[in-house]
């Protein structure tokens, strides 16, 4: 499923940020092509989430650039990035707890509807049929992540594993070119993890480039085309899963820690 052809959708170059004199991330770069799954791994505090936050516009990088489909988007606001085709999920979930599961996903379709407020008020029947079409599309996405039966439930009442999938469904509603997933399998049991595996591979297969941060090493090794290893904010290795898992620096920095049974969040 690895797509070696096609120009990169996301190019990250020399990205760095400093927090109070500490180089949280320093000179990190990589590229994602359509349909590719790239994973960022590294011990806790290696800078994975910080890197995600810079790419998705939450932190302004001190140096380096992010290009999305050829356009420089470094530090651009999240909703503008979403409109340009970059969407992400969060380790600690960002959903609308007081809205229904269906409405959560429908809100992701909003950006295809921008500027239609006055048209909506003036042309009610058209607006209604469009809303119904969006509802149908949202239900299809819920079916895809296995949440179709929970559509009418209040999102805040869902289990953690279900919320993870809900967040992915909402991210997909944006029809992203690039999807950033921050620990999609955290807190999921083995069956749920397999479902998420399958889902991620399907999404990639349709041409979306996926950037993944995940602590489940089996999952990372199984689905990644390319792995970038961070330690102390710097890229210490990269390559395909086989290469990376044999790299002595990686074993020392990360897999060594893994053997001691670390499984906490980062």
């Amino acid at each position: 499923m690895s797509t070696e052809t096609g120009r990169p959708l996301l190019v990250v170059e020399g990205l760095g940020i400093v927090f109070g004199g500490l180089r949280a991330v320093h000179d990190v770069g990589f590229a994602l092509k359509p349909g590719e799954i790239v994973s960022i791994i590294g011990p806790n505090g290696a800078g994975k989430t910080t890197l995600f936050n810079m790419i998705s516009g939450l932190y302004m990088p001190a140096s380096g650039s992010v290009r999305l489909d050829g356009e420089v988007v470094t530090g651009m606001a999240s909703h503008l990035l979403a409109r340009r085709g970059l969407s992400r999920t969060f380790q600690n979930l960002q959903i609308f707890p007081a809205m229904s599961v269906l409405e959560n996903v429908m809100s992701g379709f909003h950006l295809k509807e921008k500027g239609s407020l006055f048209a909506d008020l003036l042309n009610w029947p058209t607006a209604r049929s469009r809303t119904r079409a969006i509802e149908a599309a949202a239900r299809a996405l819920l079916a895809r992540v296995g949440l179709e039966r929970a559509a009418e439930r209040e999102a805040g009442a869902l289990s953690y594993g279900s919320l993870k999938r809900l967040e992915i469904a909402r991210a997909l509603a944006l029809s992203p070119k690039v999807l950033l997933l921050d620990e999609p399998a955290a807190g999921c049991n083995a069956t749920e993890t397999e479902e998420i595996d399958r889902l991620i591979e399907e999404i990639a297969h349709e041409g979306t480039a996926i950037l993944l941060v995940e602590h489940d090493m089996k999952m990372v090794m199984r689905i990644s085309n390319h792995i970038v290893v961070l330690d102390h904010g710097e890229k210490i290795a990269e390559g395909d899963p086989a290469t990376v898992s044999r790299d002595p620096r990686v074993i020392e920095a990360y897999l060594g820690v893994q053997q001691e049974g670390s499984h906490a969040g980062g």
Partner: protein
Amino acid sequence: MMSDFLQFAVSGVTVGAVYALIALGFTLIYNASDVVNFAQGEFVMLGGMGTVFALQAGLPLPLAALIAVMGTAMIGIAFNKLAIERARNAPIVSLIIITIGASIFLQGVVQVVFGKGIHRLPAFSGDEPLRLLGATITPQSLWVIGGALVVFAALYLFFTRTITGLAVLATANNRFAARLAGIDTDFMMTLSFGVSAAIGALAGVLISPITLTSYQVGVPLALKGFAAAMLGGMGNPKGALVGGVLLGVLEAMTAGYLSSHYKDAVAFIVILVLLSVKPQGLFGLRTVNRV
């Protein structure tokens, strides 16, 4: 006896419909921005005063009212763009104080431009009262109640049946997640200020034939509308409707059966008692996770 009760109920619901519209304005802005907008009463004043002066300029009433409502909406949008949005990162308390400043500023401008006079709008369809089971209802009361119902019904459809409405709710629920979903939360805030101002102005147009209007009618109305919003639950349009009508009826019953001197006191005592039992108001939203 029955006719008395009915009479008080009718005047209570009429005033309550206006409180409900003002409470709705508070709620919409609060949802989009966490700001309690104490300039909400000035939107009501601008609606009434704007219509009075457009009428004096020779425009027909419907056109004068339309111009006043649209003009007030523009002022609401400008207020957000020029004052609130620029202080975006200030604490919420500072933003609320800015709204109090805007309230004083708008009163001052109207006082200078239009004077201190008290004005009356003609009733929309005459002053001939209708009789219902021994109570009298002025046609203007029906305009007020009907107008409020139309506004609430339109907003209900907007929030439940349109994607833009859903985006406003999403913004209220979790602003950070809304931005991630591609929603322009700044636009949602501007929209909320525009719509709240228009609703306030409409309330002003509807009530001015009954209560008269001047540059200083805004503040007491804002306080009542705020109380109604707190009673129903700040942030919930249904709460605004119920809170507004309840407050209006409470006032009218107190004025009718006790004395009009006590109407404000009784209404506020009931609110204090209710809020001590149920601090989030009748239909208050649960607290939600915000980042």
